[in-house]
């Protein structure tokens, strides 16, 4: 049922892309569009669930966890979504540029606290770095045999 829906939807999607770019044919495009639709279905589900969650947890995180569970249980084979995921992740740094530009709206609010923000961010980042690494190093040194498997 799930597979059928994806086939139907991706058929529509691929035809739409082919109308726009007649040259862009081939297996890769079909896989990209199909993978994208699978991901969008999870995003839709995640956002739906987020509305009913007792805590304000972002819908895309819930979608990501559902997606991870689907990959792990084999409901979605990795092959279906591998290309589109890699494509989206290599372009990730581009996608949050417009959101970052939005900071210009808050310039007046932030002018006074620019330097404290810089220092605070630096200190807090170092705290996370050192505490996480020290904790991990401590647990791993208590547990030598397991660590050996990685050397």
């Amino acid at each position, binding site marked *: 049922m799930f597979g059928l829906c994806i086939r139907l939807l991706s058929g529509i999607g691929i035809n739409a892309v082919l109308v726009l770019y007649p040259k862009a044919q081939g297996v890769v495009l079909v896989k990209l569009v199909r993978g994208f639709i699978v991901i969008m279905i999870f995003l839709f589900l995640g956002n739906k669930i987020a509305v009913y969650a007792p805590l304000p947890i972002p819908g895309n995180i819930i979608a990501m966890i559902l997606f991870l569970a689907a990959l792990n249980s084999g409901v979605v084979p990795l092959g279906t979504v591998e290309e589109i995921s890699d494509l989206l992740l290599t372009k990730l740094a581009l996608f949050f540029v417009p959101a970052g530009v939005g900071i210009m709206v808050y310039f007046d609010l932030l002018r006074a606290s620019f330097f404290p923000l810089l220092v605070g961010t630096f200190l807090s980042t170092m705290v996370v770095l050192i505490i996480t690494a020290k904790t*991990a190093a401590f647990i791993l040194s208590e547990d030598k045999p397991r660590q050996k498997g990685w050397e």
Partner: protein
Amino acid sequence: MVIQALLGCLFTVVVFYVGLQLQKRICSPLFNPTFFAIVVIIFFLQLFHIPYEAYNVGGRWVGFFLGPATVALAVPIYRQREKLKTNLFPILTSILIGSIAGIISGVLMGVLMGGSREIIFSLVPKSVTTPIAMEISRAIGGIPPLTVGIVILSGIFGATLGPEILVRLGVKDPIAQGLGIGTAAHGLGTSRAVQEGEIVGAFSGLAMGVAGIITAFLAPLILLLW
């Protein structure tokens, strides 16, 4: 309207592409193409008195892909599932403790500098990968664009200084190094960690995803306490 959207969209892509090319030339972790693009676009908009809303008609098209890209973050975690399973306890414990320390220290810094509630909440997801951090910031009532800036800063700090600081403090285990860098400095830290070694890189990438999930569940708890 369509032309305006296309312009905003194209402009974003072109400036980012220029940033990428510059990064290849400069080869320094201090130069970040996203940061470059944000600064150049803001400068351009201010220069010609273009309001953010007008730019964002097209910018929204680019930003739309953040949602699916965040979902796609599950794929690299899935690929590392064997490493996650064999080291489940050290990974989860250290990232959980590190993330709590990050949230508490972020809030503390915000309070110390006398920031408003919005600014303090924007600092909470500071060490998490940007798409997740933005959504956490939005969900708990921070300022998402401010979070983007702070997250990139965290990444630059962690990527440039992280490995050296850990070595100086005597953390030699590559797994522990990777977990620390990935939890504190997300994707930017991970791109540096990969250069430090295969194990450091793999665990940094894994830590970045796991820390994102853990922080997404921890951060809203602040609303219960505040």
